[in-house]
């Protein structure tokens, strides 16, 4: 029914605005994929793990390369090949109802496991399942294990159901780290665990984390120099992925911080695929992951209308840093446990609501937008209540759109546009009402 317009962004315009951070990130990704796809020749060992609760510093202690299935799914989404992978997985007997990240991954394996650089991904030597914030992870790794028949480590992160981290949780996680995770990683890699090496990486992590937080918090300014959702997704790439704890990450976040601070000083708004954004009309907080198959088109619906996202929860799935948490070299294992426990989707619903209200307040947003993702029960179950609760507490209007991560069948552009336009109009009218009353 819907005629989907293909948004072709001008490659020229894009080249023109390439900043140092962007170049750096591209380079880092390319190198990483090349290392991964040549692991067979170099003899490097590969660990597969998830973004939330990923233990990159620990993995590096054993000289593993880190391959993240979620990031691959995202890449496939952005490159618009995920649709065919999902279909392939469904043909293999996977249900239409389940998370499309999983199906994109399974479909990719069935179709040759080709990395974005066109070469074949290596089989992992170990699956490190840091089971954090989502049940699907557990089944996903069982599915991968069935395929690869390799060693699998389960690190169970308890859920913060009562809104707090208890001693029992920390003890449980540290014990798992010490007695299950580390010994197995040692065995598979043949590298002895060196806690000082871990401390060193953690120190680097926290340095990059400082800069990331600074970048994200620049969005408190009016106009905001960044888009903390669409742009933010690029910013979190290195730290949520395979680079936390590396010098590369430190460099990247330094470049990025400098660029953003520069824009801030000049009073500039965010950079978009179509160049600098026009006047900032609406400031939004967004809850939920984005849609990757129509990422540009989705973003355009915002910046064309002057809407900028000033804070988002999705940029906290790989770690919540803005309330003070940093990886702490002084207590290396405990800090990893705290990190896993604290990621966004491992927080109870009341905690998530508090966070969103806090964002709306601190970032002076006009309202909350929820992009509800069909795939993801961890995010989505309960979002309608969250929306109402945030509306009630902040008095700001909220809106709800639905799409999917990497399944193009669930992105209905006309529908979403319809909703967004009505929503922006609503904010406008509310404001007019408020100023008339004042």
């Amino acid at each position: 029914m819907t005629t989907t317009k293909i948004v072709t962004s001008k490659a020229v315009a894009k080249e023109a605005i390439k900043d140092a951070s962007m170049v750096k990130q591209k380079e880092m990704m390319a190198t990483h994929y090349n290392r991964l796809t040549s692991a067979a020749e170099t003899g490097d060992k590969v660990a597969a793990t998830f973004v939330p609760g990923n233990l990159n510093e620990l993995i590096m202690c054993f000289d593993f390369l880190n391959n993240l299935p979620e990031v691959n799914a995202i890449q496939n989404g952005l490159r618009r090949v995920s649709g065919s992978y999902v279909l392939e997985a469904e043909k293999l007997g996977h249900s239409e109802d389940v998370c499309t990240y999983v199906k994109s991954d399974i479909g990719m394996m069935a179709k040759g496991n080709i990395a974005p650089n066109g070469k074949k991904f290596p089989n992992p030597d170990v699956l490190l399942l840091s089971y954090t914030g989502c049940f699907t992870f557990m089944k996903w790794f069982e599915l991968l294990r069935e395929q690869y028949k390799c060693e699998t480590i389960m690190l169970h992160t308890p859920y913060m159901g009562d809104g707090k981290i208890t001693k029992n949780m920390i003890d449980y996680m540290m014990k798992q780290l010490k007695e299950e995770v580390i010994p197995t990683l040692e065995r598979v890699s043949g590298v002895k665990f060196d806690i000082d090496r871990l401390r060193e990486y953690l120190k680097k992590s926290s340095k990059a984390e400082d800069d990331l937080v600074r970048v994200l918090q620049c969005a408190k300014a009016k106009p905001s120099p960044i888009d903390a959702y669409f742009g933010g997704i690029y910013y979190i790439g290195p730290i949520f992925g395979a680079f936390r704890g590396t010098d590369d990450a430190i460099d990247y976040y330094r470049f990025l911080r400098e660029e953003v601070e520069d824009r801030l000083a000049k009073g500039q708004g965010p950079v978009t695929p179509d160049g600098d954004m026009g006047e900032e009309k609406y400031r939004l907080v967004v809850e939920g992951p984005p849609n990757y198959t129509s990422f540009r088109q989705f973003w355009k619906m915002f910046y064309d209308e002057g809407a900028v996202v000033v804070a988002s929860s999705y940029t906290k799935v790989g770690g919540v840093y803005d309330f003070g948490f940093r990886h702490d070299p002084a207590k290396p294992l405990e800090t990893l446990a705290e990190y896993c426990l604290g990621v966004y989707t491992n927080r109870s619903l009341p905690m998530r609501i508090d966070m969103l209200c806090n964002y709306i307040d601190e970032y002076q947003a006009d309202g909350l937008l929820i992009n509800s993702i069909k795939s993801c029960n961890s995010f989505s179950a309960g979002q309608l209540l969250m929306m109402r609760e945030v509306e009630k507490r902040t008095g700001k209007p909220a809106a709800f759109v639905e799409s999917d991560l990497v399944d193009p069948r669930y992105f209905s552009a006309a529908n979403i546009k319809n909703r967004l336009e009505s929503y922006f109009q609503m904010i406008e009218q509310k404001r007019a009402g408020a100023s008339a009353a004042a």
Partner: protein
Amino acid sequence: MKTFVGIDLGSTTTKAVLLDEGCKVIGHGITNSRSNYATAARVASQEAKVDGQFTLFRRALTDANKLIDLDTFLGVLERAFRLEQFLEQLDDLEQTCLSQVRGERFAKVASGVNDALGEVFRRLREEAPALYAPGAKRKSDFFRDIAGSRYHTHAEEVARAAGLPYDLLLNVYDKSIIEVENRPPAGELSEKFRRALGRMLASEPSVKSAAADIQKMIEDALSVDLEETYLVGTGYGRVTLPFSKEHIRSEILCHGLGAHMMFPKTRTVLDIGGQDTKGIQVDENGIVANFQMNDRCAAGCGRYLGYIADEMNMGLHELGPLAMKSDRPARINSTCTVFAGAELRDRLSLGEKREDILAGLHRAIILRAISIISRSGGVTNEFTFTGGVAKNEAAVRELRKVIKENYGEVTINIDPDSIYTGALGAAEFARRAHLGQADGSEA
């Protein structure tokens, strides 16, 4: 005079509303939707003009009230006009049908078919005045429906008598009606009025004495030009509306505004149309605060009732009254339109009563609608029910029940013209857009 036109191109019906500068409705028009959207929009807005013309007659004739009984007079005039319209379309249909009778399929039977068609149309024309007699009940007000159902009846008899396959005559009709209804309406409106007036003055002795005065007043009214000052369109499948971008508004906004205009205290709007169910929350200015609608799935929408009516061989407007007879509605959970018939058969074969099943189906529709409403933010006083299904008394009854059970005492508004809600909002958007243009600011 300046008029503002709002057109709501629905999946089932296309509606038009004509507003004057003072925000008063002067005409409503409705027709069945069809593949040629431009034609559907034209027909609807012409119908609204016709209705507007009657409003003008009424205004003009108020002075003549002493001479005649105004309501009777306008009633007679309208029926005469409708008959005129019907006969004109019937001619068109006959010509089209005859032109279909060619090619290999008809090689052996062409002359027989032509004769049969002649007979069918003769009967149609003969009974036409009775269709428009005072108090006559028509299956629907749309040419396609009236002509269709009568054609089927006559064709079956004629075919049997002539020993022709009924399917053949049916197919000729199916092929022709689509052509006829997609042709833009021909002829001047005022000419049709004049003919209708002539037909009426000739046959109604009661008004003969005043004929000259009446003719003069009608001519005056006809000379008022209903200028289409600004038009806004909305509706299902908006992407392909036959208007340019600045003349299109989202159907949600139109419905919200329309409901607000009908009942200014409205806070929650439920619209059940042919293929969509919308739950809309509006504020005190008629601005949409939240909404939900079905997408991808037409379960529990108006078409669902259409399928059921077909399955039961009944008219749409007969479903409600039958369902009202039940006091023990069946418990039905699935409202999938496609499988409605199957579900119905299943239950009939289990021995459930027709009225109980029907009542259950109505309840199921309402439950589904309420779940959409509740996703949009629940029911807040006052509640306005719009769209075609609001004409169905059984649906209304279930709605009242469900709301009372779950939200307590809530004022429920249903306007007899509720099917025009979207078009009304659109017309108001047209009026505001024109005002905005006139004084150079955004409305």
